[in-house]
């Protein structure tokens, strides 16, 4: 069997990152955890929205539900954290299945879908903030993480899993089906592609990956309240990072999340008050400048370099 350089390279990088924490300060470990979180979130958002074209403005819903699944399991029912993490996968996945069956089987317009997801995030936030038994707006205090690098490895694992999953999907038969759906859903359907099944499966997968990320992050916070768990910034950040990196590609969201989470961190330590403003302007400029994301910009720059290096005399192609 031939070795795929992308898989080998990815695994080597993951192994390197896995060996890293003992040589890093606590600050750098937590910075890397934030980066992994955003890689997992942007990659999961891309699994559904990037690959099918159904942009979701409220995918943070699954982050919050994952966080609260973990919180309720551990803080209310005193279940072991492992069970909490497992529920952080299962509950958002089931919610994804139910929502997907309701939203994706009907021919809902893409714009409506985006707004419905945003609304569901806000509705859930309000409901959670008003249920006393799960801490209402005061939130819940969670058991703290008992092992030093646990969060680091779990988040790294989720980031690697999401990226690997996206890569496998894109290279499989489903990769063709999803690109077809992205291009033209009616034409895809009449070419034999079960469009609803494809959309539903990717929706559930993205919900599950985001859910477990939310569960792990809330455990790290060792505290969760509705305004953190269902913060709209979570929904927007993953979307912006995935789009900034490159919509629908595998490497795009990874690159977008790495670059933007580090820029975000640098801005909030150097100019904390202006961070959201500068960040916002940066996003607008970048999206106007290269709507296909930095992946596409790299590709275009490479193409331009290649055409510069080609001899120009004669003009005819060989």
């Amino acid at each position, binding site marked *: 069997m031939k070795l795929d350089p992308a898989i080998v390279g990815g695994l080597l990088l993951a192994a390197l990152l896995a060996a890293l924490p003992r040589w890093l300060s606590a600050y750098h470990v937590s910075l890397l955890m934030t980066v992994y979180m955003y890689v997992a979130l942007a990659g999961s958002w891309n699994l559904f929205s990037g690959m099918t074209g159904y942009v979701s403005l409220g995918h943070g819903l699954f982050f919050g539900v994952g966080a609260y699944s973990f919180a309720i399991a551990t803080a209310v029912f005193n279940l072991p954290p492992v069970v909490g993490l497992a529920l952080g996968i299962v509950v958002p996945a089931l919610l994804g299945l139910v929502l997907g069956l309701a939203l994706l089987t009907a021919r809902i317009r893409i714009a409506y879908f985006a707004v419905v997801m945003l609304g569901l995030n806000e509705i859930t936030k309000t409901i959670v903030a008003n249920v006393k038994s799960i801490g209402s707006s005061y939130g819940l205090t969670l058991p703290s993480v008992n092992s030093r690098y646990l969060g680091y490895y779990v988040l790294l694992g989720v980031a690697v899993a999401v990226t690997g999953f996206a890569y496998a999907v894109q290279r499989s*038969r489903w990769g*063709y*089906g999803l*690109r*077809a759906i*992205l*291009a*033209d859903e*009616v*034409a*895809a*359907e*009449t*070419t*034999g*592609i*079960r*469009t*609803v099944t494809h959309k539903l499966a990717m929706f559930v997968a993205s919900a599950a990956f985001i859910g477990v990320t939310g569960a792990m992050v809330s455990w790290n916070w060792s505290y969760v309240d509705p305004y953190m768990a269902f913060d709209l910034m979570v929904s927007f950040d993953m979307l912006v990072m995935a789009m900034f990196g490159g919509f629908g590609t595998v490497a795009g969201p990874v690159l977008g999340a790495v670059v933007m989470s580090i820029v975000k961190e640098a801005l909030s330590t150097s100019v904390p008050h202006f961070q959201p403003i500068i960040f916002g302007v940066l996003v607008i400029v970048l999206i106007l400048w290269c709507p296909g994301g930095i992946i596409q910009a790299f590709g275009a720059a490479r193409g331009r370099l290649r055409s510069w290096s080609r001899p120009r005399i004669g003009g005819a192609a060989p």
Partner: protein
Amino acid sequence: MTATILAVDGLSVSFGGIQALQRVTFEIAPGRIVGIMGPNGAGKTTLFNLITGVYRPSAGVIRFGDRELQGLPPSRICRSGIARTFQSGRPFMNMTARDNVLTGLLYGQQPAASRGEAGHEAERLLDFVGLLPRADRPVASLNLMERKIVELARALATRPKLLLLDELMAGLNPNDLAPAIAIIRRIRDELGVTVFWIEHIMQVLMNTCEHLIVLHHGEKLAEGMPQAVAGDPAVAEAYFGKKGRRELV
């Protein structure tokens, strides 16, 4: 008694009170090239959308071989052996010509057993339609004729028994007509696919089809051999009005 591959019986559909098709009934024999004509708004594309499951009929039966199609999702209908192209041309613009064909091969009636097999089959099909030299160009960089041929190859890749062509010739340069007609003939002759074909260019239909169906205001106006249909006074009236009819007759 002749066998039928497609039998449409009493097919009707309405959109918001407008009756787009009214009790349309006809049969298509296997191995034929059947043309369908009619003025704009006659319901030709609507008929295709009903057969392929894009719309649901409000009444009537569509029988394909021995199975009824009405109510099935388009993907099921495709996998049971009906492929189509679209009026304005809808290839997957984010792919190369080759990947368009591969998608059809991977999802159609008899999905390819392996990627390697699909790859060979894609080459064969692209060669069949004469697009092999441009196989790896993005569809967005191809011209209209080539895009329509990509869409045709994608439809063939799903291994249909019946192929619905919705105005394949519309917008084509007159020089491209003859090659396109030749491909349609070869689809029937070499691949054994029955062709059901909407076209506005009457000369093309007259010369290529063995059977013609005429729709007008959502109803079947006439049906039969091309020459007989062309001589039908009702058809002339639908196209040219009463005065035209007098002049033609």
